């Protein structure tokens, strides 16, 4: 009888141990996933819309498609991280209510006749602007926006993690 009791107790302990072990491991996994490696500095660039300028139907020799207008979006970019940002502006992905409401420069770059390939300039790589940690930079982007669209969203990754931020832009 005593042997049976011990076995039952052991099984209860074992089951309780398993029940506690599983969430324990889960907590460890979650903590490992949510904390970044402190050995590396990383930028954390938050974008704020500063100004929108309507450029009209043409920009740098490119004509906007019928029913579209060029806009210049000016941003303040605050690097709140502890590492330097090698871009003056994080890659913004624009979306309107419809798929064809906003076109980025990739859309019309193909229309521009490609220039002849030139030799890389002296000190190539040092011309690009950056944003040191704790400082604020300015940047702008030109977009082709469908007439009548009153709001677009720009989503971007402020740092190296999966965290995504969304910037609501009111065009009205």
């Amino acid at each position, binding site marked *: 009888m005593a042997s049976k009791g*011990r076995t039952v107790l052991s099984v209860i302990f074992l089951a309780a141990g398993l029940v506690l072990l599983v969430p324990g491991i889960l*907590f460890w996994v979650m903590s490992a996933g949510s904390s970044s490696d402190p050995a590396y500095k990383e930028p954390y660039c938050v974008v704020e819309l500063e100004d929108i300028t309507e450029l009209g139907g043409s920009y740098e020799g490119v004509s906007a498609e019928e029913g579209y207008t060029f806009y210049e979006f000016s941003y303040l970019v*605050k690097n709140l991280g502890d590492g330097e940002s090698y871009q003056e502006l994080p890659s913004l992905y624009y979306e309107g209510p419809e798929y064809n409401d906003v076109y980025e420069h990739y859309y019309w770059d193909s229309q521009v006749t490609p220039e002849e390939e030139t030799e890389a300039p002296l000190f190539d790589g040092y011309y690009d602007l950056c944003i040191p940690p704790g400082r604020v930079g300015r940047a702008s982007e030109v977009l082709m926006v469908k007439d009548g669209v009153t709001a677009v969203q720009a989503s971007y990754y402020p740092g190296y993690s999966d965290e995504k931020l969304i910037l609501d832009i009111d065009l009205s």
Partner: protein
Amino acid sequence: MRCFNCRKEFDYEKYYGICPKCGCFNQKESREERHEDLHDRFGDDSDHREDSGCGQTYAYSSAEEFQPGAADSRSWEKPRRRGAGFLVFSLLFLVLSLVVLASGVLAYIGSRVETAEEPDGSLRLVSHEVGESFAFQKAELQVDEIRKLADQSVLPGLAEGMELTAVHVTGQGDGEYEDYNRIQMPYIETEAGYRYALSPYDFEPYGQMLGAYPVLDEYALMGESSCSGWYAFLTEADAEEFRIWFDEYDGSGWDGGNLLAGHYVELKAEDAAPEEGGGTDGQ
């Protein structure tokens, strides 16, 4: 003998009990026969209790308590505590699980707190004047002057509208070599934005040629008590006002550690004509 598995008749002695047909091992004797055999081999003086069958483990009843030292001709066999090992194992497993859970919860809370501390960008910014000596990472730095060294007319390889600019800096250190006490390469700020300093390796030959020599690098004050030299940058040709930024770190890590402050000095361009030579004959 007949194999218990395939029923094949075979000679037990010849095949040592292994069936030649199916390979099964067959025991010749029954349990009782083996027991008798043991009695034959070791005599018949073993202790067989009346209330306990021969060959069975003896267990004391609750009424019959074991008396250590009591007259008992048989050797006393300690009753086995069945399941005790399993119980100990289960207990240890439970304790281990508790430890894993507690440490996991603490680690998770710690990571959440760390994540919640969102960077607020509250960097301490310290302004200095040209020619002013200021404390910087166990050293003193001083920004002396800025020079526009060359534009596209001097260095045709430069990108259009850009210029090579250099800033002269002097420093005093303690002469100690500390692994992480480097002066991180400075930035220059113009109206367009920030740019990182040119690598000393890339700039040095041009610095010699254009009179901006020696060229400073991150190790300028590591193991040195003083330094005097130039940092170079690319700036817009029409830029007239600049800020040079030195980021001060606490030296707690290989990459400088924690950023403590951003020291900056405002500069105005002094259009100095590029100096002649200063380098090798080849240049």
